Protein backbone atom coordinates (compact mmCIF):
# COMPACT_ATOMS: atom_id res chain seq x y z
CA UNK A 1 0.00 0.00 0.00
CA UNK A 2 2.76 2.43 0.97
CA UNK A 3 4.68 1.71 -2.22
CA UNK A 4 1.58 2.32 -4.28
CA UNK A 5 0.92 5.62 -2.51
CA UNK A 6 4.53 6.67 -2.83
CA UNK A 7 4.29 6.01 -6.56
CA UNK A 8 1.04 7.97 -6.78
CA UNK A 9 2.53 10.94 -4.93
CA UNK A 10 5.70 10.85 -6.99
CA UNK A 11 3.78 10.69 -10.24
CA UNK A 12 1.53 13.57 -9.19
CA UNK A 13 4.57 15.69 -8.31
CA UNK A 14 6.14 14.76 -11.63
CA UNK A 15 3.08 15.77 -13.63
CA UNK A 16 2.80 18.96 -11.60
CA UNK A 17 6.37 19.96 -12.39
CA UNK A 18 5.83 19.13 -16.04
CA UNK A 19 2.80 21.44 -16.16
CA UNK A 20 4.65 24.17 -14.25
CA UNK A 21 7.42 24.19 -16.83
CA UNK A 22 5.15 24.48 -19.84
CA UNK A 23 5.25 28.26 -19.88
CA UNK A 24 1.58 28.89 -20.38
CA UNK A 25 -0.76 30.54 -17.91
CA UNK A 26 -3.28 27.72 -17.72
CA UNK A 27 -0.78 24.94 -17.38
CA UNK A 28 0.87 26.97 -14.64
CA UNK A 29 -2.39 26.96 -12.71
CA UNK A 30 -2.94 23.27 -13.38
CA UNK A 31 0.57 22.57 -12.16
CA UNK A 32 0.05 24.56 -8.98
CA UNK A 33 -3.23 22.76 -8.30
CA UNK A 34 -1.59 19.37 -8.78
CA UNK A 35 1.36 20.41 -6.65
CA UNK A 36 -1.10 21.23 -3.87
CA UNK A 37 -2.82 17.86 -4.20
CA UNK A 38 0.47 16.00 -4.14
CA UNK A 39 1.58 17.77 -0.98
CA UNK A 40 -1.76 17.09 0.71
CA UNK A 41 -1.43 13.43 -0.10
CA UNK A 42 2.11 13.51 1.22
CA UNK A 43 1.04 14.99 4.57
CA UNK A 44 -1.62 12.35 4.85
CA UNK A 45 0.70 9.48 4.12
CA UNK A 46 3.59 11.03 6.05
CA UNK A 47 1.43 11.08 9.17
CA UNK A 48 1.42 7.30 9.15
CA UNK A 49 -1.16 5.35 7.19
CA UNK A 50 -2.95 2.55 9.00
CA UNK A 51 -6.13 0.56 8.73
CA UNK A 52 -7.71 1.73 11.95
CA UNK A 53 -10.96 2.75 13.54
CA UNK A 54 -12.08 6.35 13.15
CA UNK A 55 -10.79 8.49 16.06
CA UNK A 56 -14.20 9.08 17.62
CA UNK A 57 -14.88 9.11 21.34
CA UNK A 58 -17.68 6.76 22.35
CA UNK A 59 -20.50 8.01 24.58
CA UNK A 60 -19.32 8.20 28.15
CA UNK A 61 -15.65 7.56 27.31
CA UNK A 62 -12.93 10.19 27.64
CA UNK A 63 -10.58 9.06 24.85
CA UNK A 64 -10.94 7.19 21.58
CA UNK A 65 -10.66 3.42 21.77
CA UNK A 66 -7.18 1.91 21.43
CA UNK A 67 -6.10 1.39 17.82
CA UNK A 68 -7.89 4.46 16.52
CA UNK A 69 -6.22 6.40 13.72
CA UNK A 70 -4.20 9.54 14.47
CA UNK A 71 -6.67 12.38 13.90
CA UNK A 72 -4.05 15.09 13.46
CA UNK A 73 -2.96 14.36 9.86
CA UNK A 74 -6.64 14.26 8.91
CA UNK A 75 -7.22 17.62 10.52
CA UNK A 76 -4.10 19.06 8.89
CA UNK A 77 -5.03 17.75 5.47
CA UNK A 78 -8.59 18.99 5.72
CA UNK A 79 -7.38 22.46 6.68
CA UNK A 80 -4.77 22.48 3.95
CA UNK A 81 -7.33 21.39 1.35
CA UNK A 82 -9.76 24.11 2.37
CA UNK A 83 -7.03 26.73 2.18
CA UNK A 84 -5.74 25.43 -1.14
CA UNK A 85 -9.29 25.43 -2.48
CA UNK A 86 -9.86 29.06 -1.55
CA UNK A 87 -6.50 30.24 -2.84
CA UNK A 88 -6.78 28.32 -6.08
CA UNK A 89 -10.29 29.65 -6.65
CA UNK A 90 -8.98 33.16 -6.22
CA UNK A 91 -5.95 32.49 -8.39
CA UNK A 92 -8.29 31.25 -11.13
CA UNK A 93 -10.33 34.43 -11.05
CA UNK A 94 -7.13 36.47 -11.04
CA UNK A 95 -5.78 34.48 -13.97
CA UNK A 96 -8.99 35.08 -15.93
CA UNK A 97 -8.61 38.83 -15.38
CA UNK A 98 -4.87 38.83 -16.09
CA UNK A 99 -5.40 36.67 -19.17
CA UNK A 100 -7.94 39.18 -20.43
CA UNK A 101 -5.58 42.06 -19.71
CA UNK A 102 -2.52 40.52 -21.33
CA UNK A 103 -4.52 38.83 -24.07
CA UNK A 104 -2.09 35.92 -24.29
CA UNK A 105 -1.47 32.59 -22.65
CA UNK A 106 2.31 32.92 -22.96
CA UNK A 107 3.87 33.44 -19.54
CA UNK A 108 6.75 35.46 -20.98
CA UNK A 109 4.29 38.32 -21.41
CA UNK A 110 3.67 38.46 -17.66
CA UNK A 111 6.90 40.15 -16.72
CA UNK A 112 5.63 42.90 -14.49
CA UNK A 113 7.31 45.83 -16.21
CA UNK A 114 4.89 48.72 -16.04
CA UNK A 115 3.99 50.24 -19.37
Amino acid at each position, binding site marked *: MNVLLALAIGTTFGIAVLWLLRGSLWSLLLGLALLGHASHLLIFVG*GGLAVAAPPLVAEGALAPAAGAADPLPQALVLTAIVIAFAILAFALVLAV*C*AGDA*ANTDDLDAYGGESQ
Partner: protein
Amino acid sequence: MNASVVVAPILVPLVAALFGALGPRRPGYQRTVGLLGAFGLFVAAMGLLASVFVEGVIAVQIGDWPAPFGITLAADRLSAAMVAATGLVAFTVVLYSTAEIPDDVVTAGFYPFVHVLLLGVCGAFVAGDLFNLYVWFEVMLLASFVLLALGSGRAALTSSITYVALNLLASAFFLIGVGFLYGQVGTLNFADLSLKLGDPAALDAARPAALLLLIAFGIKAGVFPVFFWLPAAYPNASFAVSALFAGLLTKVGVYALLRVFTLVFPLEALGLAPGLLAVAAATMASGVLAAASQAHVRRILSFHIVSQIGYMVLALALVTTLGLASAVFYIVHHIVTKTNLFLVGGLIARAGGSEQLDQIGGLSQRRLGLTMLFAIPALSLAGVPPFSGFFAKFFLIRSALEADAIVAVTFAVVVGLLTIYSMAKIWIEAFWKPAPAETHLDEPLPRAALVACAMLAVVTITLGVGAEALWSFALATAEQLADPQEYLNAVLGDPT
Protein backbone atom coordinates in the same frame (compact mmCIF):
# COMPACT_ATOMS: atom_id res chain seq x y z
CA MET B 1 -5.76 38.79 31.49
CA ASN B 2 -2.49 37.57 30.05
CA ALA B 3 -4.33 35.57 27.43
CA SER B 4 -6.20 38.61 26.16
CA VAL B 5 -2.95 40.45 25.54
CA VAL B 6 -1.74 37.79 23.09
CA VAL B 7 -5.11 37.27 21.42
CA ALA B 8 -5.89 40.99 21.05
CA PRO B 9 -3.51 41.71 18.10
CA ILE B 10 -5.37 38.94 16.21
CA LEU B 11 -8.87 39.85 17.31
CA VAL B 12 -8.65 43.58 16.65
CA PRO B 13 -7.93 43.30 12.89
CA LEU B 14 -10.49 40.48 12.63
CA VAL B 15 -13.21 42.59 14.22
CA ALA B 16 -12.19 45.61 12.13
CA ALA B 17 -12.39 43.51 8.97
CA LEU B 18 -15.83 42.21 9.99
CA PHE B 19 -17.17 45.69 10.75
CA GLY B 20 -15.82 46.95 7.46
CA ALA B 21 -17.26 44.07 5.45
CA LEU B 22 -20.67 44.03 7.14
CA GLY B 23 -21.15 47.77 7.42
CA PRO B 24 -22.35 50.17 4.74
CA ARG B 25 -20.19 50.61 1.66
CA ARG B 26 -19.77 54.33 2.16
CA PRO B 27 -16.20 55.58 1.73
CA GLY B 28 -16.42 57.67 4.90
CA TYR B 29 -17.54 54.74 7.03
CA GLN B 30 -14.96 52.38 5.50
CA ARG B 31 -12.09 54.81 6.08
CA THR B 32 -13.17 55.48 9.66
CA VAL B 33 -13.41 51.77 10.48
CA GLY B 34 -10.09 51.12 8.74
CA LEU B 35 -8.34 53.84 10.69
CA LEU B 36 -9.94 52.93 14.02
CA GLY B 37 -9.03 49.27 13.52
CA ALA B 38 -5.43 50.13 12.70
CA PHE B 39 -5.21 52.39 15.73
CA GLY B 40 -6.72 49.62 17.85
CA LEU B 41 -4.09 47.24 16.55
CA PHE B 42 -1.38 49.74 17.41
CA VAL B 43 -2.67 49.99 20.98
CA ALA B 44 -3.04 46.19 21.28
CA ALA B 45 0.49 45.69 19.93
CA MET B 46 1.94 48.16 22.42
CA GLY B 47 0.02 46.36 25.17
CA LEU B 48 1.55 43.05 24.13
CA LEU B 49 5.04 44.55 24.00
CA ALA B 50 4.66 46.04 27.47
CA SER B 51 3.29 42.78 28.94
CA VAL B 52 6.04 40.66 27.44
CA PHE B 53 8.62 43.19 28.55
CA VAL B 54 7.39 42.95 32.14
CA GLU B 55 6.37 39.30 32.41
CA GLY B 56 8.51 37.40 29.91
CA VAL B 57 7.13 34.84 27.48
CA ILE B 58 3.32 34.61 27.48
CA ALA B 59 1.60 31.54 26.06
CA VAL B 60 -2.10 30.92 25.52
CA GLN B 61 -3.72 27.58 24.86
CA ILE B 62 -6.61 28.35 22.54
CA GLY B 63 -9.81 26.63 23.60
CA ASP B 64 -8.05 25.45 26.78
CA TRP B 65 -6.56 22.40 25.02
CA PRO B 66 -3.14 21.79 26.56
CA ALA B 67 0.04 22.02 24.46
CA PRO B 68 1.29 20.19 22.46
CA PHE B 69 -2.16 18.92 21.44
CA GLY B 70 -4.07 22.13 21.00
CA ILE B 71 -3.39 25.38 19.23
CA THR B 72 -0.84 27.42 21.10
CA LEU B 73 -0.23 31.12 20.74
CA ALA B 74 3.00 32.29 22.28
CA ALA B 75 4.64 35.68 22.42
CA ASP B 76 8.25 36.15 23.43
CA ARG B 77 10.24 39.35 22.98
CA LEU B 78 10.80 38.68 19.27
CA SER B 79 7.10 38.13 18.60
CA ALA B 80 6.14 41.15 20.64
CA ALA B 81 8.66 43.38 18.87
CA MET B 82 7.42 42.24 15.47
CA VAL B 83 3.77 42.76 16.44
CA ALA B 84 4.63 46.21 17.79
CA ALA B 85 6.33 47.15 14.52
CA THR B 86 3.30 45.80 12.66
CA GLY B 87 1.00 48.00 14.73
CA LEU B 88 3.06 51.08 13.90
CA VAL B 89 3.19 50.24 10.18
CA ALA B 90 -0.53 49.45 10.13
CA PHE B 91 -1.53 52.75 11.64
CA THR B 92 0.73 54.95 9.54
CA VAL B 93 -0.01 53.16 6.27
CA VAL B 94 -3.76 53.23 6.82
CA LEU B 95 -3.50 56.92 7.71
CA TYR B 96 -1.58 57.51 4.49
CA SER B 97 -4.03 55.42 2.49
CA THR B 98 -6.98 57.60 3.50
CA ALA B 99 -5.39 60.25 1.29
CA GLU B 100 -4.34 57.97 -1.56
CA ILE B 101 -6.87 55.19 -2.19
CA PRO B 102 -9.77 56.39 -4.38
CA ASP B 103 -13.41 55.95 -3.32
CA ASP B 104 -14.25 53.13 -5.71
CA VAL B 105 -11.41 50.96 -4.39
CA VAL B 106 -12.39 51.77 -0.80
CA THR B 107 -16.00 50.70 -1.38
CA ALA B 108 -14.80 47.52 -3.11
CA GLY B 109 -13.51 46.35 0.28
CA PHE B 110 -9.99 47.74 0.49
CA TYR B 111 -9.87 48.18 4.25
CA PRO B 112 -11.36 44.80 5.22
CA PHE B 113 -8.63 43.16 3.15
CA VAL B 114 -5.94 45.35 4.70
CA HIS B 115 -7.15 44.13 8.08
CA VAL B 116 -7.21 40.51 6.95
CA LEU B 117 -3.60 40.98 5.85
CA LEU B 118 -2.72 42.42 9.27
CA LEU B 119 -4.59 39.52 10.87
CA GLY B 120 -2.40 37.07 9.00
CA VAL B 121 0.80 38.95 9.82
CA CYS B 122 0.05 39.23 13.55
CA GLY B 123 -1.16 35.64 13.66
CA ALA B 124 2.08 34.43 12.11
CA PHE B 125 4.09 36.36 14.70
CA VAL B 126 2.36 34.72 17.67
CA ALA B 127 1.71 31.26 16.20
CA GLY B 128 3.05 28.56 18.51
CA ASP B 129 3.18 25.71 16.00
CA LEU B 130 4.31 25.12 12.48
CA PHE B 131 0.91 24.37 11.00
CA ASN B 132 -0.63 27.51 12.42
CA LEU B 133 2.23 29.45 10.99
CA TYR B 134 1.27 27.94 7.63
CA VAL B 135 -2.38 28.89 8.04
CA TRP B 136 -1.52 32.50 8.94
CA PHE B 137 0.88 32.68 5.99
CA GLU B 138 -1.99 31.68 3.71
CA VAL B 139 -4.40 34.18 5.26
CA MET B 140 -1.82 36.87 4.63
CA LEU B 141 -1.19 35.62 1.11
CA LEU B 142 -4.85 35.57 0.12
CA ALA B 143 -5.34 39.13 1.35
CA SER B 144 -2.19 40.25 -0.44
CA PHE B 145 -3.44 38.77 -3.75
CA VAL B 146 -6.64 40.77 -3.44
CA LEU B 147 -4.88 43.99 -2.45
CA LEU B 148 -2.45 43.63 -5.33
CA ALA B 149 -5.24 43.18 -7.85
CA LEU B 150 -7.75 45.67 -6.38
CA GLY B 151 -8.11 48.71 -8.56
CA SER B 152 -4.80 48.32 -10.31
CA GLY B 153 -4.00 48.46 -13.97
CA ARG B 154 -2.85 45.92 -16.48
CA ALA B 155 0.75 45.83 -15.25
CA ALA B 156 -0.32 45.02 -11.71
CA LEU B 157 -2.60 42.21 -12.88
CA THR B 158 -0.04 40.51 -15.06
CA SER B 159 2.81 40.90 -12.59
CA SER B 160 0.63 39.47 -9.82
CA ILE B 161 0.75 36.13 -11.64
CA THR B 162 4.46 35.81 -10.85
CA TYR B 163 3.75 36.73 -7.27
CA VAL B 164 0.90 34.24 -6.93
CA ALA B 165 2.78 31.40 -8.61
CA LEU B 166 5.98 31.76 -6.57
CA ASN B 167 4.13 32.14 -3.31
CA LEU B 168 1.98 29.08 -4.01
CA LEU B 169 5.16 27.19 -4.79
CA ALA B 170 6.58 28.28 -1.44
CA SER B 171 3.40 27.15 0.28
CA ALA B 172 3.74 23.73 -1.33
CA PHE B 173 7.34 23.45 -0.06
CA PHE B 174 6.15 24.54 3.37
CA LEU B 175 3.41 21.89 3.43
CA ILE B 176 5.70 19.12 2.26
CA GLY B 177 8.17 20.09 4.98
CA VAL B 178 5.40 20.03 7.57
CA GLY B 179 4.28 16.60 6.34
CA PHE B 180 7.79 15.14 6.58
CA LEU B 181 8.34 16.65 9.98
CA TYR B 182 5.09 15.32 11.40
CA GLY B 183 5.80 11.89 9.99
CA GLN B 184 9.23 11.86 11.59
CA VAL B 185 8.75 13.59 14.90
CA GLY B 186 5.03 13.28 15.54
CA THR B 187 4.46 16.86 16.67
CA LEU B 188 4.36 20.33 15.15
CA ASN B 189 4.33 22.47 18.29
CA PHE B 190 7.50 24.62 18.31
CA ALA B 191 8.28 23.92 21.95
CA ASP B 192 7.61 20.20 21.66
CA LEU B 193 9.64 20.01 18.44
CA SER B 194 12.49 21.77 20.16
CA LEU B 195 12.55 19.13 22.89
CA LYS B 196 12.20 16.16 20.57
CA LEU B 197 14.80 17.42 18.08
CA GLY B 198 17.29 17.84 20.91
CA ASP B 199 18.16 14.24 20.15
CA PRO B 200 20.87 14.31 17.41
CA ALA B 201 19.48 11.22 15.67
CA ALA B 202 16.01 12.77 15.42
CA LEU B 203 17.50 16.01 14.17
CA ASP B 204 19.45 14.16 11.53
CA ALA B 205 16.32 12.36 10.36
CA ALA B 206 14.47 15.66 10.14
CA ARG B 207 17.11 17.25 7.91
CA PRO B 208 15.03 17.02 4.68
CA ALA B 209 12.14 18.77 6.40
CA ALA B 210 14.51 21.49 7.59
CA LEU B 211 15.77 22.08 4.06
CA LEU B 212 12.24 22.21 2.64
CA LEU B 213 11.22 24.75 5.25
CA LEU B 214 14.36 26.75 4.54
CA ILE B 215 13.41 26.93 0.85
CA ALA B 216 9.81 27.85 1.68
CA PHE B 217 10.77 30.65 4.08
CA GLY B 218 13.52 31.73 1.71
CA ILE B 219 11.01 32.32 -1.09
CA LYS B 220 8.69 34.16 1.29
CA ALA B 221 11.52 36.31 2.59
CA GLY B 222 12.88 36.95 -0.90
CA VAL B 223 16.46 35.67 -0.67
CA PHE B 224 18.79 34.87 -3.54
CA PRO B 225 18.03 33.17 -5.94
CA VAL B 226 14.26 33.25 -5.41
CA PHE B 227 13.50 36.96 -4.99
CA PHE B 228 12.22 37.70 -8.49
CA TRP B 229 8.57 37.87 -7.48
CA LEU B 230 9.27 40.80 -5.19
CA PRO B 231 10.47 43.56 -7.55
CA ALA B 232 7.93 42.33 -10.10
CA ALA B 233 4.96 42.80 -7.82
CA TYR B 234 5.68 45.66 -5.43
CA PRO B 235 6.19 48.61 -7.81
CA ASN B 236 2.83 48.04 -9.53
CA ALA B 237 0.51 48.20 -6.52
CA SER B 238 -0.78 51.40 -4.96
CA PHE B 239 1.74 53.18 -2.73
CA ALA B 240 -0.04 52.36 0.49
CA VAL B 241 -0.25 48.67 -0.43
CA SER B 242 3.36 48.48 -1.55
CA ALA B 243 4.47 50.17 1.67
CA LEU B 244 2.48 47.66 3.68
CA PHE B 245 4.00 44.78 1.71
CA ALA B 246 7.50 46.26 1.86
CA GLY B 247 7.31 46.73 5.60
CA LEU B 248 5.70 43.48 6.58
CA LEU B 249 5.42 40.59 4.11
CA THR B 250 9.03 39.61 3.58
CA LYS B 251 9.71 40.22 7.26
CA VAL B 252 7.22 37.49 8.12
CA GLY B 253 9.47 35.18 6.12
CA VAL B 254 12.54 36.43 7.98
CA TYR B 255 10.69 36.03 11.26
CA ALA B 256 9.86 32.43 10.35
CA LEU B 257 13.54 31.80 9.58
CA LEU B 258 14.56 33.33 12.91
CA ARG B 259 11.98 31.37 14.86
CA VAL B 260 12.32 27.97 13.22
CA PHE B 261 16.09 27.99 12.80
CA THR B 262 16.80 28.90 16.41
CA LEU B 263 14.07 27.13 18.36
CA VAL B 264 13.32 24.07 16.23
CA PHE B 265 16.35 23.45 14.05
CA PRO B 266 19.52 24.93 15.53
CA LEU B 267 21.46 26.10 12.48
CA GLU B 268 24.79 25.06 13.89
CA ALA B 269 23.70 21.50 14.66
CA LEU B 270 22.37 21.13 11.12
CA GLY B 271 25.58 22.51 9.61
CA LEU B 272 23.58 24.92 7.47
CA ALA B 273 25.23 28.11 8.69
CA PRO B 274 28.00 28.43 6.03
CA GLY B 275 25.49 27.81 3.23
CA LEU B 276 23.09 30.36 4.63
CA LEU B 277 25.94 32.85 4.97
CA ALA B 278 26.72 32.45 1.26
CA VAL B 279 23.05 32.85 0.35
CA ALA B 280 22.87 35.98 2.48
CA ALA B 281 25.93 37.51 0.82
CA ALA B 282 24.55 36.72 -2.65
CA THR B 283 21.21 38.24 -1.69
CA MET B 284 22.85 41.43 -0.45
CA ALA B 285 25.01 41.79 -3.53
CA SER B 286 22.41 40.95 -6.16
CA GLY B 287 19.77 43.16 -4.56
CA VAL B 288 21.98 46.21 -4.33
CA LEU B 289 23.46 45.78 -7.82
CA ALA B 290 20.01 45.41 -9.35
CA ALA B 291 18.87 48.49 -7.47
CA ALA B 292 21.82 50.49 -8.80
CA SER B 293 20.74 49.76 -12.37
CA GLN B 294 17.14 51.00 -11.93
CA ALA B 295 15.74 54.45 -12.58
CA HIS B 296 12.30 54.12 -11.05
CA VAL B 297 11.73 55.09 -7.42
CA ARG B 298 9.88 52.03 -6.18
CA ARG B 299 11.87 49.59 -8.27
CA ILE B 300 15.07 50.88 -6.63
CA LEU B 301 13.43 50.56 -3.23
CA SER B 302 12.11 47.06 -3.99
CA PHE B 303 15.54 45.76 -4.89
CA HIS B 304 16.85 47.35 -1.71
CA ILE B 305 14.42 45.23 0.27
CA VAL B 306 16.09 42.17 -1.23
CA SER B 307 19.53 43.46 -0.34
CA GLN B 308 18.48 44.25 3.22
CA ILE B 309 16.85 40.86 3.68
CA GLY B 310 20.36 39.62 2.96
CA TYR B 311 21.69 41.62 5.93
CA MET B 312 19.10 40.06 8.23
CA VAL B 313 19.79 36.51 7.04
CA LEU B 314 23.52 37.21 7.36
CA ALA B 315 23.01 38.18 10.98
CA LEU B 316 21.07 34.96 11.59
CA ALA B 317 23.71 32.87 9.85
CA LEU B 318 26.44 34.12 12.18
CA VAL B 319 24.87 31.79 14.81
CA THR B 320 26.01 33.92 17.73
CA THR B 321 23.86 35.70 20.28
CA LEU B 322 25.29 39.00 19.09
CA GLY B 323 24.34 38.08 15.53
CA LEU B 324 20.76 37.32 16.54
CA ALA B 325 20.57 40.58 18.44
CA SER B 326 21.74 42.54 15.42
CA ALA B 327 19.19 40.68 13.27
CA VAL B 328 16.42 41.81 15.63
CA PHE B 329 17.73 45.37 15.61
CA TYR B 330 18.00 45.34 11.83
CA ILE B 331 14.47 44.03 11.31
CA VAL B 332 12.89 46.68 13.52
CA HIS B 333 14.90 49.44 11.83
CA HIS B 334 14.13 48.07 8.39
CA ILE B 335 10.36 47.79 8.89
CA VAL B 336 10.08 51.41 9.97
CA THR B 337 12.48 52.87 7.42
CA LYS B 338 11.33 50.90 4.42
CA THR B 339 7.65 51.58 4.99
CA ASN B 340 8.53 55.25 5.31
CA LEU B 341 10.52 55.28 2.06
CA PHE B 342 7.71 53.67 0.07
CA LEU B 343 5.22 56.18 1.47
CA VAL B 344 7.53 59.10 0.68
CA GLY B 345 8.00 57.56 -2.77
CA GLY B 346 4.28 58.04 -3.24
CA LEU B 347 4.57 61.69 -2.30
CA ILE B 348 7.52 62.13 -4.69
CA ALA B 349 5.42 60.65 -7.49
CA ARG B 350 2.59 62.97 -6.56
CA ALA B 351 4.71 66.11 -6.35
CA GLY B 352 6.82 65.32 -9.39
CA GLY B 353 4.13 63.68 -11.49
CA SER B 354 6.04 60.46 -12.12
CA GLU B 355 8.09 57.71 -10.55
CA GLN B 356 10.61 57.64 -13.40
CA LEU B 357 13.67 59.50 -12.18
CA ASP B 358 14.39 61.07 -15.59
CA GLN B 359 10.97 62.73 -15.67
CA ILE B 360 11.12 64.48 -12.31
CA GLY B 361 13.42 66.90 -10.54
CA GLY B 362 13.80 70.11 -8.62
CA LEU B 363 11.83 68.92 -5.63
CA SER B 364 14.30 70.33 -3.13
CA GLN B 365 13.52 73.89 -4.24
CA ARG B 366 9.77 73.48 -4.34
CA ARG B 367 9.06 71.03 -1.55
CA LEU B 368 11.11 71.62 1.56
CA GLY B 369 8.92 69.45 3.80
CA LEU B 370 9.02 66.55 1.39
CA THR B 371 12.79 66.92 1.07
CA MET B 372 13.15 66.56 4.83
CA LEU B 373 10.76 63.61 4.91
CA PHE B 374 12.78 61.82 2.24
CA ALA B 375 16.16 62.70 3.70
CA ILE B 376 15.54 61.10 7.10
CA PRO B 377 14.64 57.54 6.02
CA ALA B 378 17.03 57.69 3.04
CA LEU B 379 19.99 58.62 5.24
CA SER B 380 18.87 55.98 7.71
CA LEU B 381 18.71 53.31 5.01
CA ALA B 382 22.11 54.35 3.73
CA GLY B 383 23.51 53.95 7.24
CA VAL B 384 24.39 57.51 8.19
CA PRO B 385 24.54 58.43 11.89
CA PRO B 386 22.59 59.34 13.98
CA PHE B 387 19.74 57.46 12.34
CA SER B 388 18.71 53.89 13.13
CA GLY B 389 20.30 52.44 9.99
CA PHE B 390 23.79 53.40 11.10
CA PHE B 391 23.44 51.49 14.34
CA ALA B 392 21.77 48.54 12.61
CA LYS B 393 24.77 48.20 10.28
CA PHE B 394 27.25 49.03 13.01
CA PHE B 395 26.01 46.30 15.34
CA LEU B 396 25.78 43.82 12.48
CA ILE B 397 29.36 44.46 11.36
CA ARG B 398 30.61 44.31 14.92
CA SER B 399 28.88 40.96 15.47
CA ALA B 400 30.37 39.66 12.23
CA LEU B 401 33.85 40.85 13.29
CA GLU B 402 33.50 39.09 16.62
CA ALA B 403 32.42 35.93 14.82
CA ASP B 404 35.54 36.25 12.62
CA ALA B 405 33.40 36.32 9.47
CA ILE B 406 35.67 38.60 7.47
CA VAL B 407 33.98 37.89 4.14
CA ALA B 408 30.64 38.81 5.66
CA VAL B 409 32.10 42.07 6.96
CA THR B 410 33.48 42.90 3.51
CA PHE B 411 30.11 42.27 1.89
CA ALA B 412 28.28 44.32 4.50
CA VAL B 413 30.58 47.30 4.01
CA VAL B 414 30.62 47.22 0.19
CA VAL B 415 26.89 46.68 -0.09
CA GLY B 416 26.40 49.52 2.39
CA LEU B 417 28.40 51.85 0.15
CA LEU B 418 26.36 50.83 -2.89
CA THR B 419 23.19 51.51 -0.89
CA ILE B 420 24.41 55.06 -0.36
CA TYR B 421 24.92 55.28 -4.11
CA SER B 422 21.29 54.41 -4.92
CA MET B 423 19.89 56.70 -2.27
CA ALA B 424 22.11 59.47 -3.66
CA LYS B 425 20.76 58.70 -7.11
CA ILE B 426 17.15 59.30 -6.05
CA TRP B 427 18.33 62.38 -4.19
CA ILE B 428 20.20 63.91 -7.12
CA GLU B 429 17.64 63.03 -9.76
CA ALA B 430 14.43 63.83 -7.92
CA PHE B 431 15.53 66.63 -5.63
CA TRP B 432 18.64 68.44 -6.94
CA LYS B 433 18.42 68.18 -10.71
CA PRO B 434 16.43 71.08 -12.25
CA ALA B 435 12.87 70.07 -12.99
CA PRO B 436 11.95 69.14 -16.55
CA ALA B 437 10.00 72.10 -17.91
CA GLU B 438 6.48 70.74 -18.12
CA THR B 439 6.11 69.29 -14.65
CA HIS B 440 4.77 71.98 -12.41
CA LEU B 441 2.35 70.38 -10.02
CA ASP B 442 1.89 72.84 -7.22
CA GLU B 443 -1.14 71.42 -5.44
CA PRO B 444 -0.45 70.87 -1.73
CA LEU B 445 0.34 67.35 -0.65
CA PRO B 446 -2.40 65.64 1.41
CA ARG B 447 -1.95 66.34 5.09
CA ALA B 448 -2.77 62.82 6.31
CA ALA B 449 0.00 61.40 4.12
CA LEU B 450 2.52 63.97 5.36
CA VAL B 451 1.60 63.24 8.98
CA ALA B 452 2.00 59.49 8.40
CA CYS B 453 5.48 59.94 6.90
CA ALA B 454 6.47 62.36 9.65
CA MET B 455 5.42 59.88 12.34
CA LEU B 456 7.63 57.19 10.85
CA ALA B 457 10.49 59.68 10.50
CA VAL B 458 10.19 60.55 14.18
CA VAL B 459 10.35 56.85 15.04
CA THR B 460 13.46 56.47 12.85
CA ILE B 461 15.15 59.32 14.70
CA THR B 462 14.06 57.95 18.07
CA LEU B 463 15.43 54.51 17.22
CA GLY B 464 18.69 56.16 16.23
CA VAL B 465 18.99 58.38 19.28
CA GLY B 466 17.75 55.64 21.59
CA ALA B 467 19.83 52.98 19.89
CA GLU B 468 21.30 51.88 23.18
CA ALA B 469 17.89 51.04 24.65
CA LEU B 470 16.84 49.19 21.51
CA TRP B 471 20.15 47.33 21.46
CA SER B 472 19.74 46.13 25.04
CA PHE B 473 16.21 45.02 24.13
CA ALA B 474 17.60 43.21 21.08
CA LEU B 475 20.27 41.54 23.20
CA ALA B 476 17.66 40.30 25.67
CA THR B 477 15.59 39.06 22.73
CA ALA B 478 18.58 37.22 21.32
CA GLU B 479 19.31 35.60 24.68
CA GLN B 480 15.71 34.42 24.76
CA LEU B 481 16.17 32.93 21.28
CA ALA B 482 19.51 31.34 22.06
CA ASP B 483 18.28 29.71 25.25
CA PRO B 484 14.68 28.64 24.66
CA GLN B 485 14.08 27.34 28.18
CA GLU B 486 11.80 30.23 29.11
CA TYR B 487 9.75 29.70 25.94
CA LEU B 488 9.47 25.96 26.59
CA ASN B 489 8.37 26.54 30.18
CA ALA B 490 5.74 29.04 29.13
CA VAL B 491 4.27 26.76 26.46
CA LEU B 492 4.58 23.31 28.00
CA GLY B 493 4.30 24.24 31.64
CA ASP B 494 7.10 24.66 34.15
CA PRO B 495 8.51 21.23 35.06
CA THR B 496 9.73 22.43 38.45
